[in-house]
């Protein structure tokens, strides 16, 4: 299990990165490499060139703004997990980081890599979808921002072009409740199902602007809009959680593989949605 031959380059600017990507459709970006390296070792990926982001400045910062938080593409899962600023400003992010793989992976794997890889089993895509994040990318034609709702287009595919590079993820700093549920059999396992929920709460205790995202048990990270509709405007509680569970079960067609059938995952997802909506009553 040794990687195939490729060339390697570590340019010093985003512009240079995009120029190299544009010059070779078989080139691929590497940063932490925690998803790409296994694919190379198993020769399931065979890029002609790896463009390393390690020398590009400005991609490893966490910026806490008034209305949003900006996280650079090269910020590691460990950086997020251990950030005191994030712990107070947006505790969902450090909370979720701890579910990712192992400490030995989190120290090197990056937020940008995980989002760009668009693995439906990964935690970040599901959570960012629930958080209404924006993904900033730069290509040869300049930069653009992609709403997370438009980002994940399929398993391991996104709306980024081959010559674009993900530079940052921006998350709104709204006063919202959140919940995260993942069913993984043991530490570091891919989840059998992942659910992330965020919602605002009115003065009278009613949920609004609910976003319910699901990963792992589906081919593409996706929102459960039926569940959002079902809980929007309602007061959280056991009854609502049970309703959300029932709606969730009916609103997905989960994948089937050696780790669990579609029907099992459907029921499991329902239970996680119930747990997540129950958690919302506890609030932030």
């Amino acid at each position, binding site marked *: 299990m040794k990687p195939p031959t490729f060339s390697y*380059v570590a340019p010093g600017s985003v512009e240079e990165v995009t120029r190299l990507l544009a010059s070779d459709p078989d080139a691929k970006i590497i940063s932490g490499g925690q998803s790409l390296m296994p694919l190379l070792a198993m020769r399931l990926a065979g890029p002609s060139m790896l463009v390393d982001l390690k020398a590009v400045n400005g991609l490893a910062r966490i910026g806490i703004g008034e209305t949003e938080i900006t996280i650079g593409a090269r910020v590691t899962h460990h950086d997020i997990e251990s950030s005191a600023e994030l712990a107070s400003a947006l505790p969902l992010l450090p909370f979720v980081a701890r579910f990712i793989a192992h400490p030995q*992976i989190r120290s090197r794997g990056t937020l940008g890599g995980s989002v760009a890889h668009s693995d439906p089993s990964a935690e970040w895509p599901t959570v960012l979808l629930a958080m209404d994040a924006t993904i900033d990318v730069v290509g040869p034609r300049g930069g653009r921002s992609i709403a997370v709702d438009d980002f994940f287009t399929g398993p391991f595919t996104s709306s980024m072009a081959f010559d674009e590079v993900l530079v940052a993820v921006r998350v709104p700093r709204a006063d919202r409740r959140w919940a995260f549920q993942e069913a993984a059999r043991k*530490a*570091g396992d891919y989840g059998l199902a992942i659910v992330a929920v965020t919602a605002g709460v009115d003065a009278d205790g009613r949920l609004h602007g609910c976003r319910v995202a699901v990963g792992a048990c589906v081919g593409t990270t996706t929102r459960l809009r039926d569940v959002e509709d079902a809980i929007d405007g309602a007061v959280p509680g056991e009854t609502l959680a049970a309703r959300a569970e029932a709606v969730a079960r009916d609103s997905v067609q989960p994948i089937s593989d050696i780790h669990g059938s579609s029907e099992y995952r459907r029921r499991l997802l329902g239970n996680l949605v119930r747990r997540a909506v129950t958690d919302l009553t506890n609030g932030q």
Partner: protein
Amino acid sequence: MTTTPQESLHVSVSVNGRTYRAQVDARKTLADFIREDAVLTGTKLGCEHGVCGACTVLVDDAPMRSCLMLAVQADGRHVRTVENLADGTELNSLQQAFQRNHSLQCGFCTAGILMSATALLEQNPTPTRAEIVETVSGSLCRCTGYETIVAAVEEAAAPAEERS
């Protein structure tokens, strides 16, 4: 900074305080560089896809899978391996705790676990049991059943006077 794509590159990596310079294929993993170019074979390869943890080393003091990193990505960085733990005359306190607690059998996974635990204890000298379990859970061991590994890390973390 490498500005022209190349299949073979010159790297300079500090391993256990000694600098190793070599011309390597871009595709060579850090694990293979450590084992072949630095000739430090204490770092083991158990799966080569990042799951088993046997190849875990410290890169600039952080625990990382050396099979999931290219040698060229380690250019200019400081790597520490299991060979660096003992001083050449006796085992360090963590290693001694492993021996006392029978925390290893075949010893193949041990280097990775020791390096992960070293990073944990350097960052947090008084970890909780849950934190130790999380760290040890990043490695696979087929021999010990794990309980004694956690016991050894707990013992190494505790001040000597608290040990029974």
